[in-house]
């Protein structure tokens, strides 16, 4: 009998299987480390130390996690509506422009907490704007959103480089980046939050956008499971034909879902641009949009899962930096490998163990 349709309890679906998948990913990563002549156990312990061993480490971990929460939510919202948005990367990039323009315009005049709401709106608007055309193409012309969002990632990169190099650059400066924002354009760090737990943040750029991310995670939860729009999105995502029957307007729902998705991706820019470097730089997104896919997959598109998965990836990032610093033979790119393996095993090979588990479970349940 086929095992594909055997029902498994939640603890297997959401606990055991992701755990096994992750374990394989890490095991293979360990093999890679070992094969280049380094000690994988040392690497793991360094990684944990780097990510969680100090207030600063935790600060960095959460800083990276913040970006991943935004992009993970972005991917998840689209996913609930049945859309695979792999354009979060580009939407975040363009979102950075929105945040930066607001910061540049206001930082002379108002304190950060006045700038912030405008920056949130600016980043979200620009990110959403960058999702609009692919959304429109999917909704009205049937162009596959996966392809169009890939294309828009590249178009966005070209656009941003052009703007940074030719328009936003500070005359006479070498790097294609905007001027540094004044305090009114910076999001303050969360030292106080760390202090509550008796830790020192140090220089880690863990900042207010983390709280914005948590608020967004909550709002996404409300949106998906507590609003009519979310209900319509989920209907569309699971059964387009039932959505037609139920009177869910296809074009509008697709576009709105993508705008929200793009907006969330855009807000990711708040974290690096206004929270950390206080200026807009080229390529500041650095792959966080793609990591969002992994985060959303691992978090099963649920905000709580996404926050947890984002923290896991944050640990990977920060821990990886630490490892590469301490073990010069392991470059930071090892993290890219681990990410890839996690995406592969927790995402694409999600069901690799399912048949075996289903069989074992079937036998257990019977016996």
């Amino acid at each position, binding site marked *: *009998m*086929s095992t*594909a*349709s*055997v*029902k498994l309890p939640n603890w297997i679906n959401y606990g055991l299987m992701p755990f096994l998948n992750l374990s394989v990913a890490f095991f293979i990563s360990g093999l890679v480390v070992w094969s280049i002549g380094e000690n994988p156990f040392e690497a793991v312990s360094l990684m944990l130390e780097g990510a969680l061993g100090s207030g600063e480490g935790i600060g960095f971990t959460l800083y990276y996690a913040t970006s991943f929460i935004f992009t993970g939510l972005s991917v998840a919202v689209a996913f609930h509506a049945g859309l695979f948005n792999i354009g979060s990367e580009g939407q975040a990039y363009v979102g950075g422009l929105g945040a930066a323009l607001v910061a540049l315009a206001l930082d002379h005049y108002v304190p950060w907490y006045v700038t912030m709401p405008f920056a949130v709106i600016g980043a979200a608007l620009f990110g959403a704007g960058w999702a609009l055309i692919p959304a429109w193409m999917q909704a009205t012309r049937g162009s596959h959103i996966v392809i169009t969002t890939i294309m828009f990632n590249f178009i966005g990169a070209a656009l941003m480089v052009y703007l940074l190099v030719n328009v936003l650059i500070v005359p006479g400066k070498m790097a294609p980046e905007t001027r540094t924002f004044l305090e009114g354009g910076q999001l303050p760090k969360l030292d106080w939050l760390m202090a509550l737990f008796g830790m020192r943040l140090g220089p880690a750029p863990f900042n207010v956008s983390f709280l914005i991310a948590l608020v967004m995670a909550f709002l996404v939860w*409300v949106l998906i499971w*507590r*609003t*009519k*729009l*979310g*209900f*319509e999105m*989920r*209907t569309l995502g*699971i*059964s387009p*034909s*039932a959505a*037609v*029957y*139920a*009177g869910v*307007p296809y074009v509008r729902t697709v576009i709105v879902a993508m705008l929200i998705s793009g907006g969330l991706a855009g807000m990711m820019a708040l974290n690096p641009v206004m929270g950390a470097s206080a200026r807009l730089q080229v390529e500041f997104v650095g792959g966080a949009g793609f990591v969002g896919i992994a985060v959303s997959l691992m978090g099963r598109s649920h905000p709580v899962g996404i926050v947890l998965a984002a923290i896991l990836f944050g640990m990977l990032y920060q821990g990886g930096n630490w490892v590469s610093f301490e073990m010069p033979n392991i470059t930071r790119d090892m993290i890219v490998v681990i990410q890839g393996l996690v995406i592969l095993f927790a995402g694409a090979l999600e069901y690799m163990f399912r048949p075996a588990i289903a069989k074992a479970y079937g036998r257990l349940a019977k016996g």
Partner: protein
Amino acid sequence: MSDVAAIELFGIDKRFGSVHANRNIDLKVAKGSIHGIIGENGAGKSTLMSILYGFYQADGGEIRVDGRPAHIRDSQAAIAAGIGMVHQHFMLVENFTVLENIMLGAEGGAFLKSGTDKVRGELKRLEEEYGLDVDPDAVIDELPVGLQQRVEILKALYRGAEILILDEPTGVLTPAEADHLFRILVQLREQGKTVIFITHKLREIMAVTDTVSVMRRGEMVATVKTAETSVEELAELMVGRRVLLRVRKGEAAPGAVLLSVRNLTVKDNRGVVMVDNVSFDVRAGEIAGIAGVAGNGQSELLEAIAGIRKPVSGEIVVDGKPLAAADPAYMREIGLAHIPEDRHHMGLVLPFEEYENAMLGYHRDPAFGRGPFLDLEAIRADAREKIEKYDIRPPDCRLKTANFSGGNQQKIVCAREIERDPKILIIGQPTRGVDIGAIEFIHKRIIDMRDAGKAVLLVSVELDEIRALADRVLVMFAGHVVGETVPDADEKTLGLMMAGIAA
């Protein structure tokens, strides 16, 4: 027809997860016969045949071909054993030509050149022999379904099938085409080939088969000689009891016209005109039934009225007001409810919890939450009420809808639409794949709606259902309403009308 068995099945068993599609099935098909298989939707006919054709693997049991045990691991093995199958859902590559489709898997060499010539020759021969003519260079996409089916048959014959399985071939055929098909089947039998023929239509069984087997709920309940049985007996075997369930209903008291369809023309997704200039009225307090063989435009008509499908021309008038651009949400708003013919495809979102489906389509109702929000408490309370009233089992509104049985799923849909207390109710196949108990319950509800002065439009391919429920019967054929009659009209008249023969 001889006594040698072309096919013998022993104890075939197949499960799909929790669905037990075939239970311990034995079957014997005589060589050189036409063997009919009937059974309700979901009885397991296609599954059994797909196992025979190597498409699915049985969980247990044995297959013998020509008396020898055959290990049919895949379709390749089936083809090698001389078995050909025309699937219920065609297995054609739509952007390929007829030629390419026929060659696929039987190319006769690593390069296509030599094979194409052979296929052309063979096609010509088959055309002459059976009158199966079709342009080898036509692209499947552009062929009408009847011809597509012909390509499927040619595929099987080209591969030298001695045993030909046809899974519901007539569902997509016009009566003339069906007759042509039957002549071919008879011709095949005369050549000593064996035909297994699946259908829902008892008349066809009576017309063309030598033997008939009946399946019910995954089991093979009987195999009888066609000559020794009757339509009535078969129907009883199929459903498990006398079919003619007459629900008690009083006289209709038709009132004002609530729904009016005027010169409606509708195309399907392929752009084929499925509803052609159709007009009729439905009055308050009556059930208008639309009878017809599946695929004669009923589905498209329903979808157009429900606002799901845009008509090409014509108009729909509700309560005297013509509707411009209808959409399903708007139709609901003005009091038109729709029980779709396919609950899995449209009526329900199976992974949703029951309460979510209990409001599907009405989720924008302020009663289910203010502004943009959903009031889950209110929604669940409402769902529980319906569960109670419709005796939906298990009575748990937090259970995933997929985990309810077919009958209970259908009750969820009915409860949702009927309890809105619409002015107009349009219904497609209300009891497809539903057990007897649920059928009676649902029929009762539909009559109640009528008695409460609603306009009910009922579409069903089950003639008995139409006759049991409808106050007047419209017959659809090839996109037209070919006539109107009373439900008590004799079966022969109705059957002829459905076949498009008499007016």
